[in-house]
C-alpha cells in the first residue's frame, strides 16, 4: 500500500510495516519537550506513575520560555520546579536563561531534531518541526509525563491533506502569508485531526526558516502535524547541525489523500488575520484605517534571523509612529547575537523599537507588552483569540514581518508598498 511521509514515520516508530488512518498505535518517541507552563503539571503526573528513572536522559528537552525571565513569583516557582526535576533525573537538555530561546526556534537551531524523527511536545506549536521532515505534534502534560516515563505515546493515525503551492510569490509575500491564506481557505478546524503535507514548486523555493513558519501554524487549522519532505535544502540545513540529516521519507506517488488543495499563489497579497480567529484573513489592501497601538515582531512563528532581517530592512533610517510601541522578540540567544553582528539590533533600536531577550512574552499575553482595554496590536505571532495578548477587549491582527514593520511606521495596518 502506498504511504505518505507521516504514515511512514508513524509505522516505523510503532514497529509496523504500514499504518492507515484511524488506527490507534503506540509509538516510540525520539524527543519529548515541555515548557514552563506545561512541565509543572507533567512533573506532578510523572511522580504519580512511580518510576525511578526517565526513559532517556538525553531525549527530554525542558525549555522555560513562556514567562521567562520569571515575570513574577509564581512563574519563578514553576521554573524552579523544572530545574529541580532536571537535576534530580539528570536531564541533560534543560535550557535556562542565558542559553534558552523560544522552544520551537531553539530546538531546530541547536540540532535537536532530524528528518524522520517522532517528536511530541507539551506545546501545541510542536508541529513546527514537521518542516524538517519529522513527525511532530503537540500533546498535553499527562502525555508528556507518560512519555518521559515510558518513551512512548499513543497516536491515532491521521488522515492526510495535501497542499500544493504553485506560481511565483509577489513582493512582500512571505511563508507566513501562505499559511495564513491556507487557514483562511480551510478554516480553524479545516484540518482537525489531520496531517497537512506541504509541497509544490513554491515550497521547494522557500528557505527552511520559511517552512518552519508554515509548519508552526498547522495547529491553527486544527492539524495534528504539518509535514514537508526533507529535500536538498533541508538536508543541507540538518547536516550543519548536531542532529545530522536523519532518515528522509518521501510520500509514495499513489498515496491516499483525503483532499488535495492545488493553489496558484502568484496573486495572493500579504494576508492579515483579523480578530479573533487566525482564519479571519483578508488581503492587506483591504485594511483601511485600522489604527494600532503596538506591533510585535518575533515569536516561534516569525522570530528567526530571516525575519529580523526583513524588519531591519523596512525600519532602517525610519522612525516608528509616535503613538505606538514596537516590540521585537528574537527567537534565541544565537539570533540575538547574529542581530548584533549584522547591526540589526542597532537599526531597530534607532527606529524606536524595544529589542527583548528571547521569550514568549506578549504572544500569549504573558508579559513584556500586554495590551490594555480597547488596544490593538499587529503581530507576527500565530494566534489572535480573545484576550490572547492582554485585556479581553483588546485585539490582535496577525501578519507577516514586512507588514508588521511597515504598520509600525505608519501607525495603522499597511503593506510596505504603501510607505
Amino acid at each position, binding site marked *: 500500500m502506498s504511504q505518505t511521509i507521516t504514515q511512514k514515520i508513524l509505522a516505523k516508530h510503532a514497529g509496523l510495516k504500514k499504518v492507515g488512518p484511524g488506527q490507534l498505535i503506540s509509538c516510540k518517541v525520539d524527543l519529548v519537550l515541555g515548557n514552563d507552563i506545561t512541565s509543572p503539571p507533567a512533573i506532578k503526573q510523572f511522580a504519580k506513575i512511580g518510576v525511578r528513572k526517565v526513559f532517556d536522559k538525553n531525549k527530554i528537552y525542558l525549555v522555560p520560555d513562556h514567562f521567562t525571565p520569571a515575570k513574577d513569583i509564581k512563574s519563578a516557582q514553576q521554573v524552579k520546579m523544572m530545574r529541580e526535576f532536571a537535576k534530580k533525573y539528570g536531564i541533560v537538555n534543560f535550557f535556562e536563561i542565558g542559553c534558552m530561546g523560544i522552544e520551537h526556534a531553539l530546538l531546530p537551531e541547536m540540532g535537536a531534531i532530524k528528518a524522520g524523527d517522532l517528536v511530541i511536545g507539551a506545546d501545541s506549536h510542536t508541529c513546527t518541526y514537521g518542516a524538517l521532515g519529522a513527525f511532530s505534534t503537540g500533546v498535553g*502534560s499527562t502525555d508528556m509525563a507518560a512519555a518521559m516515563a515510558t518513551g512512548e505515546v499513543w497516536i491515532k493515525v491521521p488522515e492526510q491533506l495535501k497542499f500544493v503551492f504553485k506560481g511565483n510569490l509577489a513582493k512582500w509575500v512571505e511563508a507566513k502569508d501562505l499559511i495564513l491564506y491556507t487557514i483562511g481557505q480551510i478554516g480553524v478546524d479545516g484540518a*482537525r485531526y489531520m496531517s497537512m503535507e506541504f509541497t509544490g514548486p513554491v515550497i521547494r523555493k522557500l528557505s527552511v526558516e520559511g517552512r518552519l513558519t508554515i509548519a508552526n501554524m498547522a495547529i491553527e487549522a486544527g492539524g495534528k502535524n504539518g509535514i514537508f519532505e526533507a529535500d536538498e535544502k533541508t538536508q543541507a540545513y540538518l547536516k550543519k547541525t548536531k542532529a545530522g540529516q536523519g532518515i528522509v521519507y518521501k510520500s509514495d506517488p499513489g498515496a491516499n489523500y483525503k483532499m488535495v488543495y492545488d493553489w496558484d499563489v502568484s496573486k495572493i497579497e500579504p494576508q492579515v488575520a483579523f480578530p479573533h480567529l487566525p482564519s479571519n484573513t483578508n488581503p492587506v489592501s483591504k485594511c483601511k484605517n485600522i489604527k494600532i497601538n503596538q506591533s510585535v515582531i518575533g515569536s516561534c512563528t516569525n522570530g528567526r534571523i530571516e525575519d529580523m532581517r526583513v524588519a531591519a530592512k523596512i525600519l532602517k533610517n525610519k522612525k516608528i509612529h509616535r503613538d505606538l510601541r514596537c516590540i521585537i522578540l528574537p527567537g534565541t540567544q544565537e539570533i540575538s547575537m547574529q542581530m548584533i553582528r549584522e547591526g540589526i539590533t542597532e537599526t531597530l533600536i534607532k527606529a524606536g523599537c524595544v529589542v527583548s531577550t528571547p521569550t514568549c512574552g506578549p504572544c500569549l499575553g504573558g508579559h513584556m507588552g500586554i495590551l490594555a482595554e480597547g488596544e490593538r496590536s499587529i503581530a507576527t505571532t500565530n494566534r489572535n483569540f480573545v484576550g490572547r495578548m492582554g485585556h479581553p477587549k483588546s485585539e490582535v491582527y496577525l501578519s507577516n514581518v514586512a507588514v508588521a514593520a511597515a504598520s509600525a511606521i505608519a501607525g495603522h495596518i499597511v503593506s510596505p508598498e504603501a510607505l
Partner: protein
Amino acid sequence: MQGKVWKFGDNIDTDLIIPARYLNTSDPSELAEHCMEDADPNWVSKKEKGDFIVAGENFGCGSSREHAPIALKAAGVSAIIAKSFARIFYRNAINIGLPIMESEEAANEIKEGDKIEVDLAKGEIKNVSSKMIYYAQPFPPFMQKLIKAGGLINYIKKSKRR
C-alpha cells in the same frame, strides 16, 4: 449525573477556557476560579457543581494547556458535550478523566438552562426538560480502556504491574 446546561458556541479556544495570564500556576482550584472568564466573566459565580457545558464545533482549540480540562474539572463541570472537539483537548480530557461526549444533535437541540441526565457508560444524554434522548459517538476500544482506568497515568500504572 444530572445537572443544568450552559451553552457556548463554536471554536471555544483554550485561551477562553483559561486565559494565559493565570497559567503561572497549575493549582486546579486556582485555575477553576478563572474558568471561562474571557467567554463569560460571571460564569464561575453562576455555575453550580455538576453542571454541564454544551458547545458547538472544535471545542478546546488552540494551545495544548492541560490547564483547560483541569480548570473545567475543578470547576465542577460534570461533562462537556460538543459537536466536535479539538485534537489536543480531546486527548487531554481523556488523559485526566474529564468526561467528554460528541453529539451534534444534542449540541443543536439542548438549550441553555435545560436539565440533562447523562449515562457515560451508555453514552446516553437525556434532556429532562424536553424528554429527548441522544446518543454520543462511542469511543474506540483503546480509549474506553483509558477512560475505565481513570486516565492515562492509572492505565500505565496498571499495565506496568502486569
